[in-house]
């Protein structure tokens, strides 16, 4: 029976690169997907594109592709990524120029377009905002972007036309991984049972390190070896849509039924109805079985027909965010901090702030509990350093931030900088109103 291997190269836009390279070198992969686009990042990317028409794709695209393209070429691994963000066309050009510079010849690069539906939503102001129930016209002057979550079909079409690299804008996260299965196994786009199985695989892979023990470890019951050197996952799947998940030997981390179960339930609501553009996946009967070290078999996912609408994320300007921090220590430090907050509140009254919130980090900034029974209610890790370059300094924040998907369980609230507030709401647009288009280029 035909089998393919699909790896996961990134769990979010700013993720580490090294585990992806190891996976490409040693994982015997046919495909690798890099999931790099969130609700908020697409709106920010659109804003960047407005200021710089040649930008608006993932800021780490060049950094990643410098290393990824030679390996994709050498090991014949096809690359699928939503790093195109707001500007897949510019991303395609950037990739081709990197290939040119590295003297990599004979690759076909595709960009899937069509998720940008800003013009459509601007002409349909009566569309209802899902979160508020109000019409889109209530925010119409402030709208920055509108991007539909496309499904797998555009990527499948690119693969059928022999693309080696497929770059997209907004697509559902599982679609990046589902598309190669549809293409390789000739699954019909209305074989919803198979699409549901493929969606499970996409969902297990889409957060990369998280299914390999990232964002899982604790000190008492969930011990994860070599978390600093966590490997990223791959799956081997056959044409029935079932298979196993594993990672490259000698990499850190762990894959077991517990890591798989946490990832299965991550950011889904009703497990029997996980809505995607390609199908409504049913994970409610999924089973996991550990068959070897770091190797877990999965089965029993299924699916139903999808809805006839695409979910569209609408980004809009929603004011500005400002933050200041100050610390107090020693005797009566909380009382002194409280006094300071009272002074700030009084001083700020003249500006008529709405939602001015005051947190005492280490006391109640992240805890929702109304008890103070714990000796150390909160602790916040701060790492800082003095460096020569801006790039170097940024690396500290990046390393802390990657603990979200790669570090110990339950970490929260990583902050780097803050600026203008771009909020995102959702609307539904009939699928018949949205057309995808694919463009190609050769290296």
């Amino acid at each position, binding site marked *: 029976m035909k089998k393919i291997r699909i790896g996961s190269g990134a769990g979010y836009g700013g993720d580490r690169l090294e585990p992806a390279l190891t996976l490409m070198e040693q994982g015997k992969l046919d495909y690798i997907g890099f999931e790099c686009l969130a609700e908020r990042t697409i709106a920010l990317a659109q804003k960047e594109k407005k200021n710089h028409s040649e930008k608006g794709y993932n800021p780490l695209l060049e950094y990643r592709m410098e290393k990824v393209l030679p390996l994709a070429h050498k090991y014949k691994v096809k690359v699928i990524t939503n790093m195109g963000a707001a500007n897949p066309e510019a991303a395609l050009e950037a990739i081709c120029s990197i290939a040119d510079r590295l003297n990599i010849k004979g690759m076909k690069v595709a960009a899937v377009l069509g998720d940008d539906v800003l013009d459509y939503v601007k002409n349909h102001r009566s569309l209802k905002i899902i979160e508020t129930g109000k019409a889109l016209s209530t925010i119409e002057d402030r709208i920055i972007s509108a991007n539909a979550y496309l499904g797998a079909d555009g990527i499948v079409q690119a693969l059928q036309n022999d693309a080696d690299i497929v770059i997209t804008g907004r697509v559902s996260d599982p679609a990046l991984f589902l598309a190669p299965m549809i293409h390789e196994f000739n699954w019909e786009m209305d074989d919803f049972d198979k699409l549901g199985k493929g969606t499970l695989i996409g969902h297990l892979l889409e957060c990369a390190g998280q299914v390999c023990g990232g964002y899982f470890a604790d000190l008492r019951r969930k011990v994860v070896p070599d978390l600093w050197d966590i490997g990223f996952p791959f799956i081997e799947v056959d044409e029935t849509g079932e298979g196993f998940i594993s990672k490259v030997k000698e990499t850190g981390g762990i894959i077991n039924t517990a890591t798989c179960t946490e990832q*299965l*339930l991550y*950011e889904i609501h009703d497990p029997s109805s996980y809505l995607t553009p390609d199908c409504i996946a049913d994970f*409610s009967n999924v*089973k996991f079985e550990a068959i070897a070290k770091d190797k877990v078999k999965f089965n029993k996912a299924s699916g139903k027909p999808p809805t006839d609408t695409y979910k569209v994320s609408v980004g809009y300007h929603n004011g500005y965010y400002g933050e200041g921090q100050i610390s107090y220590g020693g005797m009566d430090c909380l009382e002194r901090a409280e006094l300071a907050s009272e002074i700030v509140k009084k001083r700020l009254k003249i500006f008529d702030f709405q939602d001015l919130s005051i947190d005492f980090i280490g006391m109640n900034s992240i*805890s929702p509990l109304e008890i103070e029974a714990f000796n150390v209610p909160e602790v916040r890790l701060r790492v800082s350093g003095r460096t020569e370059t801006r790039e170097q300094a940024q690396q500290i924040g990046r390393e802390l931030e990657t603990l979200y998907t790669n570090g110990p369980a*339950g970490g929260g609230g990583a902050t780097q900088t803050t600026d203008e507030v771009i*909020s995102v709401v959702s609307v539904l647009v009939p699928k018949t109103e949205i057309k995808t288009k694919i463009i190609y280029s050769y290296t």
Partner: protein
Amino acid sequence: MELWEIAHSRSGDKGNISNISLIAYEKADYELLKEKVTVERVKQWLGKQVKGEVKRYELPQLGAFNFVLYDALNGGVTSSTSLDKHGKSLSSFLLRMPI
């Protein structure tokens, strides 16, 4: 006993909605969790954080539950001024629930 002794958990977010899994280490503890960790108790335990409804989905074959908490993230990651905008730490707080 606190929940962390028999179960593990991870939080995720979608807009202003938080989802928190709760997974028994041993499937034998599933029924105990089912009895003790009701939607009412979760809502009460997390207090003012959760302004909306709480739903619980059951996956006995995995020894797991998925809790979906509406209006629980101060407007969600793109609007909230909270430090933990995603509510990533809520799982750790859920695990301190005494049962």
